[in-house]
């Protein structure tokens, strides 16, 4: 947001049935009213009674407040905001929505043994112990987690997430995987030095981020930063990222990542997804826990390659302060749109040689799909190291040097600009303590006023709570 362009689009829908958007002028929240027109207060006029909409939409007004509120005239219970992940760890992954199901798009038909999910967090852990402190295993631990406490009114039986989880594989994941392989080829230590000073951050929608990491894992060390659990009403559809993890688990389990490979921090770009209604949604959003600049410097890393869906995308708000601070500290940060890595026709290798390939193991699966290259062509592939001059292009003996891609790339010249948002200060020097919206990542729960015992998720009043009206009376 700027003074010149104070309105920022913060909601957007673009589906066959509807197209629209909401814009927000955040700065207004800090402005005092010009005058209080009390004479008008309470006057309601208008033609639109909104009876129809009003009956369809049940809006909870307490979504933005962490304060406790007393419910009902009898004051037998009250509501409070609790950390969503804490509640799930205690009361189960589907807290407040035990009768609802997860929906998986792109189910894989490949053989799958859910018993292997018990080792998911181990199989997807970074290869290097150096990166272990940064590894966030929350999501990867969720399949086998059991409910510790049964909320009043919920069924006695509990279905662990692993019993409903199915692997997925989509076309977008396939493309992301191939892009990851292409990047791994560029980071092949046999042909490129200087890569140890680079940390890569891939920030794509969950399943694609996982696929990209799988493809890149032959030369980069994936460090997953997925810090939430899936939920049937989750704002963040992290069950899809988890389902992608399950699909690629065999590959990760057998990956041959070199022990000194640069880190690849893996983020779900949906982690700050739009959230409006705590009566119908479970706020399992979270902020990225990317290592700080000083922490990376201790590992000898001074260069960051940030991968977004396209060149036109920017870092999410929760990274803005970090990125501004990183650049101010003298580290180098460049952006790469994943779509700059595109499919191309691989050259026929000369006799006795092999084609350009990331060389990633496919876990025994024969890969007959297209290869991807930086710039979309084998001849432009090594131009990556011209655009990102942190190493030198590799030109095999007798081959021509790389040529520049025919389309423009803005990522190499990207400079993060400080911007105020609910997740960033907008301070020019960046900030080590970015703000967080009130009640972010929390869920409203109902608490017995007399005992302080958590009775359940407030959202479930539209489900099991309505069948358990005696809760209101304590």
């Amino acid at each position, binding site marked *: 947001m700027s003074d010149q362009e104070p309105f920022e689009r913060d909601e957007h829908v673009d589906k066959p049935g509807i197209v629209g958007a909401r814009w927000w002028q955040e700065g*207004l929240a800090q402005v005092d009213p*010009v005058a209080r027109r009390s004479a008008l207060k309470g006057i309601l006029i208008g033609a639109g009674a909104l009876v129809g909409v009003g009956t369809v939409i049940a809006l909870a007004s307490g979504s933005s407040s962490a304060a406790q509120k007393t419910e009902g005239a009898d004051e037998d219970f009250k509501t409070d905001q609790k950390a969503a992940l804490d509640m799930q760890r205690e009361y189960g992954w589907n807290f407040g929505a035990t009768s609802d199901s997860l929906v998986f798009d792109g189910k894989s038909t490949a053989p799958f043994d859910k018993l292997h999910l018990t080792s998911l967090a181990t199989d997807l852990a970074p290869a290097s112990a150096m990166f272990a402190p940064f590894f966030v295993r929350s999501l990867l631990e969720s399949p086998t987690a059991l409910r510790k406490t049964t909320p009043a009114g919920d069924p006695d039986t509990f279905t662990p997430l692993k019993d409903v989880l199915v692997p997925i594989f989509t076309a977008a994941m396939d493309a992301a995987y191939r892009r990851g392989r292409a990047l791994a080829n560029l980071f092949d230590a046999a042909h490129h030095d200087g890569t140890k000073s680079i940390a890569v951050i891939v920030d794509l929608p969950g399943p694609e981020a996982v696929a990209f990491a799988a493809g890149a894992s032959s030369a980069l060390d994936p460090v997953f930063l997925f810090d939430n659990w899936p939920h049937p009403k989750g704002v963040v559809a992290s069950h899809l990222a988890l389902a992608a993890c399950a699909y690629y688990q065999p590959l990760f389990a057998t990956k041959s990542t070199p022990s000194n490979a640069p880190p690849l921090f893996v983020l779900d770009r949906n982690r700050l997804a739009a959230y409006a209604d705590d009566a119908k949604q479970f706020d399992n959003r979270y902020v990225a826990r990317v290592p700080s600049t000083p922490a990376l410097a201790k590992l000898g890393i001074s260069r960051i390659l940030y991968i977004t869906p396209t060149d036109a995308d920017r870092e999410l708000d929760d990274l803005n302060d970090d990125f501004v601070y990183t650049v101010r500290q003298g580290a180098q940060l460049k952006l790469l749109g994943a779509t700059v890595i595109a499919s191309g026709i691989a050259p026929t290798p000369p006799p006795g040689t092999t084609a350009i390939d990331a060389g990633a193991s496919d876990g025994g699966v024969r890969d007959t799909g297209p290869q991807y290259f930086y710039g979309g062509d084998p001849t432009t592939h090594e131009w990556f190291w011209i655009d990102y001059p942190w190493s030198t292009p590799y030109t095999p003996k007798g081959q021509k040097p790389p040529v520049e891609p025919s389309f423009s790339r803005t990522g190499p010249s990207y400079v993060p600009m400080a911007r105020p948002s609910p997740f960033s200060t907008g301070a020019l020097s960046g900030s080590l303590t970015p703000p967080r919206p009130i009640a972010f990542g929390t869920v409203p729960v109902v608490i017995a006023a007399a005992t302080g015992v958590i009775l359940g998720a407030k959202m479930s009043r539209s489900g099991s709570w309505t069948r358990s009206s005696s809760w209101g009376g304590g």
Partner: protein
Amino acid sequence: MERTIFAMELCFRWDANLHATLREHVKSHPLSLGHHEKWVAYRNLESDLLANLERLERGCWDYFNDDQKAKHDYAMWVHGMMTDETARTTPSGSIDAYRGDAPRYLTFTIAFLVVQGTPTDTALFQLCNIPEDRLWQRATFIQILQGLGCVNFASIESDLMYLIPRDEDWSLTSEDLSDQKFQYLRPLY
């Protein structure tokens, strides 16, 4: 700061040109823009809406200057946009104008969350101070649309616009509009 809400939803008999025009208004609205650019964008939109009033069949508008009601209702409009509360969830099929198909419809919605006590709020209050017997008159909708130039977007905390449907073969049918959830869209006279 307290808030006021102004919202309007218009339901037009389907017209491919009108639909394309309105869709372009939504799609071309920049991600970020300034107060004046916003005003210009809305004036252009209002002009196109006014130019197609002969196709306007139903509608609703509201103005509430009760803070809690304003915030609640604005969130409700946003929710209605972000979910499938009113839009179809399945296609209604392509329109075959040569076979005398039943009429199809589109709706266009705008809403403003206004800072209470500002000149814009006052102007909107005066604009919307309509006698009850004229609430559902077509002329009232015209009057309000024509008067929205009074809005200074420095006093607008948030605005939204949406079009139902995006694609022609998801247009609303008479049966859709007879559903309970569309009862707030009243026939105009």
